């Protein structure tokens, strides 16, 4: 989890912040960087993976959309990223791009334990917060995992 896009706020995402198993990144940016962080959230750079996230290329988003995107990205940050170690018997290929995983490639784990290339799944999650394979809603599962831990 490289860039931290989390902002201290009282939105529903903050409910998830206690779940240690899911994230251990730094908790919010320093105040002096806050504007920069906002920029990053509201105008993410166009995606370079398959297709484009719906946000790409639109610099004039309504405030409501900007908040939606920021929340979405914040939520996605709670989904752990790992590297593919080749031992996973379940999935050998990313069903989104249909390419086989390479050892040490960055993969994102969804709560249902389905894995995808980070770029592939992030493009999809910006459109729909569901697992492409089992259609489980990602946000609901995140909240549940918080409640049970």
């Amino acid at each position, binding site marked *: 989890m490289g860039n931290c896009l989390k902002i201290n706020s009282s939105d529903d995402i903050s409910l998830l912040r206690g779940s240690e198993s899911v994230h251990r990144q730094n908790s919010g940016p320093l105040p002096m960087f806050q504007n920069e962080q906002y920029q990053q959230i509201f105008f993410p750079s166009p995606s370079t993976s*398959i*297709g484009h996230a719906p946000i790409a290329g639109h610099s004039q988003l309504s405030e409501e959309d900007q908040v939606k995107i920021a929340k979405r990205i914040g939520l996605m940050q709670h989904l752990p990223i790992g590297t593919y170690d080749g031992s996973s018997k379940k999935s050998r290929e990313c*069903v989104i791009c*249909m390419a086989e995983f390479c050892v040490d490639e960055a993969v994102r784990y969804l709560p249902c334990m389905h894995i995808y290339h980070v770029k592939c799944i992030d493009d999809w999650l910006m459109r*729909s917060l569901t697992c*492409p394979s089992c259609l489980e809603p990602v946000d609901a599962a995140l909240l549940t995992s918080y409640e049970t831990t």
Partner: protein
Amino acid sequence: MTAMSPSERRLHKELMSLIKEPPPGVTVDTESVQQNLSEWKLNIKGFEGTLYDGEDFQLLFKFNNKYPFDSPEVTFIGNNIPVHPHVYSNGHICLSILTEDWSPALSVQSVCLSIASMLSSCREKKRPPDNALYVKTCNKNPKKTKWWYHDDSV
């Protein structure tokens, strides 16, 4: 081969596996695909023992550059459009995985299987009740239609 976009790469992979191991009754019109990777014509046979036994249909798949994040546009084309409660006489298909229930884990193959199963489970050959009005007023692109999925029986 020059650099393909991720969307083209995936289409290429799907095409190869569809040619190698096509689902039952499905064949790819390779000539159409060679001309344009974003428009595929597929032939699909009505299964034995169903109302469409012995019939041949043609499907047109159109992909945009956001595939597989965007669903393909799928219609029946040609002079034999199956008479089915979910297929309009202009070839538009009312099938939820083609719009709101689409997932990038689905593929041309899984769409073909869904359509084949939709045809196979049909018990009475008839057009949708609103066929005449829909065909007169709809957009050319079925993805622009706000479908109302209400019938899970066929």
